[in-house]
């Protein structure tokens, strides 16, 4: 880890990682946003909005469409942000482990190696402790939603097209992308 890397390198990597975390977020978010936007716009052209005491208007459709898109964007960004944060910390740990490998090659002193090992272990424990609840609960949520959507799709397998199942497709793309990532 850091014993084999100078602080400047580590810091530069941190800096780059912080910057690239948000670019990664944007790159995941952008294609899904385009698909969802097409789907939502198509849907809100057809629907009629019936709010009590408010006359129906085509501007209401635009308003509701944009708030729906904002809501989708917010929810997806929050989830993806958490994932990107976890990934960022894992990347830093990978950096440390590479430095540790280098340390194993160079250093004859066992006590240094052991202390570095303990330090990496404690940091991994810290990360695992902080993200444990998120990992477990998102695992349950994703599994449950995927299972239920599987049953619903099996129930109505005769007519699946983009208009009917576009939102489901976007949701699944996001979730599966995250789990592969």
């Amino acid at each position, binding site marked *: 880890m850091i014993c084999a890397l100078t602080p400047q390198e580590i810091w530069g990597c941190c800096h780059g990682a912080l910057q690239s975390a948000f670019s990664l977020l944007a790159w995941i978010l952008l294609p899904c946003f385009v698909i969802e936007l097409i789907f939502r716009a198509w849907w809100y052209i057809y629907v*009629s909005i019936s709010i009590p005491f408010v006359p129906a208007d085509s501007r209401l459709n635009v308003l509701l469409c944009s708030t729906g898109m904002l809501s989708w964007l917010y929810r997806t960004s929050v989830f993806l942000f958490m994932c990107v944060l976890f990934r960022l910390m894992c990347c830093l740990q990978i950096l440390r482990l590479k430095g540790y490998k280098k340390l194993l090659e160079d250093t004859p002193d066992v006590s240094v190696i052991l202390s570095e090992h303990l330090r990496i272990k404690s940091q991994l424990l810290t990360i695992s402790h902080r993200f444990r609840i998120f990992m477990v609960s998102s695992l349950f949520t994703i599994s449950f939603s995927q299972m239920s959507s599987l049953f619903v799709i099996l129930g109505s397998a005769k007519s699946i097209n983009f208009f009917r199942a576009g939102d489901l497709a976007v949701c699944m793309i996001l979730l599966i992308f995250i789990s592969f990532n």
Partner: protein
Amino acid sequence: MIDKQVTYAAGDEQTAEGPLTPLILHTQEESSSTSSTHICPPDGSSDSSDSRKIKQSKVRFEHIIAFAEDEDVERSPRCIEAGERSMAKRALYKRLLSNPKDELRHFRSGLLWLGLDQSSPTKVVLSWIVFFLFTLVVPVFNYNFVSCSECGEEHAHPFEKMVQVSETALAAVSFLCLSNIVRQYGLRRTLLLDKIIKESHDVRLGYEQELRVSSLSLSLSAHAHNAMYLSPIPETFD
């Protein structure tokens, strides 16, 4: 013998926003009242400044407080080395202190744009309002008041409710965990940046003999930078 008596007062108790403490060089108590006079700064000529006179008077009381910015004072080689170390330490402190404004600025602005910045009570309330608005109010509103009575079977939305529920649940889980983590540990400690600083400080002080892997630097940092992007996490470290 004097080399062993040089201690660094700013060494151990540095925290993430620790104050900048001066470098204190202790000489040996009572016994070295005569021998300690050649330590930093050496007994100088007669045209010394007032601060130096103060220091010389302190030498008589077996204590020298040498601030790191006293560069005009002549030093013995040991003191020069100590001064370099203190300058390095000072650089570290400067970087430490300027962190919230520089390195984390993009991160914080991104958090702010997502409505997740919880660094002040106003922002906490704001982020909770945004969370409830976008996660609960808007989907429920849209689901209840948007209907398509004349839509055929081709255009109906059979999965709307399920998708909304699952997205809302995911967002709620993420938001609660993130706000819990950030509130409990702070953004810097969440990102483990404080430990990086501390370890690099330790490296500076204790493990300088281990730092000869400069040839590795470019390839490693480039590789780490690539790893931030879409490449999968490598599993092999052997």
